[in-house]
């Protein structure tokens, strides 16, 4: 076990969507480098709660759930980077060994117009749900009796490619990494997964049109190919899928 860390945390506090937010400074000591970033926030919250009995302050609200990098609930800019200073991980998988003793760490909620702040570090990502509702599915009834799974052979390469797109966890890092606040990586991952698979090809035109239109309507920006989204995506989803979606989009206007 490495040396225990002492850290200065500057954390964004905001009571609700209407009031103004601000950075508040906290100090934590004796943090194990093997603990995770969210465990450090737990530790700090425990400290705040124990002190609160004396003074006015409330624990920091932040989203989290599975704590193993798959549910997509956790977020946070840590020192300006979505999911913090490591690659291919979510905030819950970020470990304190990535920080130096004595370091100052800035923690902010994700900032994008389509992700309004709810409280402190929690944002509302229901715009992603609404994009999914606009077309992120194959219109097959679930209580039916579909044909045998092997009646639709799918080449391994295509299956793998669809899989690589499908692993998006809907966390929103791509949006907040992008200077335009574009959701192209998120939308293209779903569009590509379904357009690549024979089952999804049938409604590919309708799907891409509806989802792209909804994305624009929700206020997400356009793509200018900076690839910042790919760099920060915790699942490493490739911007190739954005190109794929652009092709699909254009195709949708042809017969």
């Amino acid at each position, binding site marked *: *076990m490495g040396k225990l860390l002492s850290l200065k945390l500057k954390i964004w506090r905001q009571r*609700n969507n209407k009031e103004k937010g601000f950075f508040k400074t906290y100090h934590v000591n004796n*943090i*194990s480098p*093997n*603990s995770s970033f969210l*465990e450090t926030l*737990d530790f700090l919250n*425990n400290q*705040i*709660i124990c002190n*609160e*009995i004396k003074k006015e302050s*409330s*624990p920091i609200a932040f989203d*989290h*759930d*599975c*704590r*193993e*990098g*798959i*549910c*997509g609930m956790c977020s946070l800019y840590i020192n300006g980077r979505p999911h913090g200073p490591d690659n*291919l*991980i979510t905030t819950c*998988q970020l470990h304190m*060994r990535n920080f130096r003793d004595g370091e100052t760490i800035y923690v902010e909620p994700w900032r994008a117009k389509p992700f309004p702040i*709810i*409280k402190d570090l929690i944002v509302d990502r*229901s715009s*992603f*749900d609404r994009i*999914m*509702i606009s077309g992120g*599915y*194959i*219109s*097959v009834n*679930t*209580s039916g*009796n*579909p044909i*045998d*799974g*092997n009646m*639709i*052979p*799918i080449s*391994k390469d295509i*299956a*793998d490619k*669809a*899989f690589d797109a*499908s*692993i998006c966890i*809907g966390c929103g890092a791509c949006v907040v990494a992008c200077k335009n606040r574009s959701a192209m990586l998120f939308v293209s991952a779903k569009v590509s*997964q379904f357009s690549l*698979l024979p*089952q999804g090809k049938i409604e590919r035109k309708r799907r891409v049109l509806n989802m792209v239109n909804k994305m624009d309507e929700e206020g997400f920006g356009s793509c200018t190919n900076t690839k910042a989204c790919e760099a920060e995506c915790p699942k490493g989803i490739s911007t190739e899928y954005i190109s794929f979606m652009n092709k699909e989009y254009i195709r949708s206007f042809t017969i």
Partner: protein
Amino acid sequence: MFYLMSHNYLKLNSKIPQGSIKDKWENYKSTLKLVSPNNRSNIEIIVVGTGLSGGSACASLSELGYNVKAFCYQDSPRRAHSVAAQGGINASKNYKGDNDSVYQLFYDTIKGGDYRSREANVYRLSEISSNIIDQCVAQGVPFARDYAGYLETRSFGGTKVSRTFYAKGQTGQQLLLSCYSAMSRQIGKGRIKMYNRHEMLDLVVIEGVARGIIARNLISGEIERHAAHAVIIASGGYGNVFFLSTNAMGSNASAIWKVHNKGGFFANPCFTQIHPTCIPLQGDYQSKLTLMSESLRNDGRIWVPKKLEDAFLIRKETKKPEEINDEDRDFYLERRYPSFGNLVPRDVASRAAKERCDKGFGIENNETKEGVFLDFSSAIYKYGQEKANEIGIKKYNDIDIVNLGEKIMESKYGNLFHMYEKITNKNPYKTPMKIYPAVHYTMGGLWVDYNLMSSIPGCYVIGEANFSDHGANRLGASALMQGLADGYFILPYTIPDYLSRYVKDPKKISITHEEFEKSEINVKNRIKKFFVNKGKIPVDFFHKKLGSIMWEYVGMSRNHVKLSKAIKKIQELRNNFWENVFVPGKIEDGLNYELEKAGRVADFLELGELMAMDALQRKESCGSHFREEYQTEEGETLRDDVNYKYVSVWEKEENKSISDEIMHKENLNFTFVKVQSRSYK
């Protein structure tokens, strides 16, 4: 504790249909009443939880035309903890031609559950399994495919066939997202009304039937009333009673516990699955444990050093596992269970790991020294050699082979290896993983009949939240199967039979009914209690304390003394909690994580006691439930089929304490499998 039969015993009718096991479900379906399509939109159904079972139920029921209101505590249904399931989903398709069949899957599941599950339910599950795969393919789940384009499978514990369908190490995610897609389609049509960031805090029972819930909007803090014609509970398991588990931080037992408090019977609460392959505990700051998929046991070999001094040196980190020769390694699963080897069921593998660590062979450099190796080096070498042969490299050296092998491992388990490395800072391609058992799944849950209805009419329970299919131990890759079977294919057939009573008079019950009023007042009073309390101790303190009691006394190995102690300790802790817990903030503040946690921990503090009581009364060892007093000479479980071949079903009477709960017995009859001693040797 009473063992009387109250008048409520009559409610314990499992409604298992007559006839041969093969025809039960088919024949039964034809007797069920239907609701015609034009009547369905007058009927409202509440679904609590949007994981695989809840999500699939929402999708299927809304497609059929019912009005569905779905509740989840997360910010989107896509985040339910089914998303974290890794390894795969079972189906008896026999694609590999290894003599798999509906019967074989049924038999493996019954045996895996150590003859403590319901035959009829398990057979139905096994029958439906194939349909689930087809359904998921149709919905666009990118399952692994072979080079011919057909569906690929792998093996899981407790079986001798390859029937587990998978999408790398993210099968749960893929299945859940396809459920979520299907739900999204219906939300768009307005057939599902989604309540994200809502938590159910009470079940409303009117004239003996479930008619709604009280929920808290977690953002605004408002307490809301929701009425319906039926309520479906799909809120998952209660593993978080142990504090440290592989469950999500928010996973909780509150929904099922509220149903229990309202008269819903609770079955087999002590059956808890401890999963053998999780990343060992690192320190007291830790908030959860991370699972490493069972699928890894396809290619990983589990071992500890044969010599105590080697184990000591490894713990001190002066010797590396790679430096220990094969002859000095104890592949204890292969040694003890030659016919299943590393693929024994989870309960068996977990106990074997504990046995080695208790004897001092643990290898983890932490306080408890508990940990064993999961080693991939032989598989890497084997796959490397195969690949080299395949691409026709004539002259190759070991380094080339290992490189080729590592690529294959990456394609199979890439995300798991990546996850392991991020958490431990060790590269599992180069050095064996360190693993140890952790709480994972709860086989126990609310009692349901063959229709999946609880003992409260109109309240259905599906997925991990019910009890019926896995007995005393669940086989790997069967949870996803059960969740989807319940939601996609069983409930949509059984629930109309109940709902048909409302067709003539579908008038909605008013939320001003006195039972709603009463429930809401109770919920509000309990919340108020947390704020007026002048305690000084944060909720987490109590949760951790409860977890350590549960792990030590009601964990992998139990006995009479420990369990009696646990009951006392939990009662003390519960009293202490209500006196000294501190919840910051004000009632009117709205979003308050500490308040949410306090409510959940208060329920865990009651459920924990019931689990210990249940473990105490079951004077036998079966599956995950290991009573030290009842074991064979070789340390295997010793079942008592004469006295304990039953489901323990607990009933809580209104305003009585946990220790006064009444236990009923649902006898288990096995007519289609021979009850044998369960051996994997």
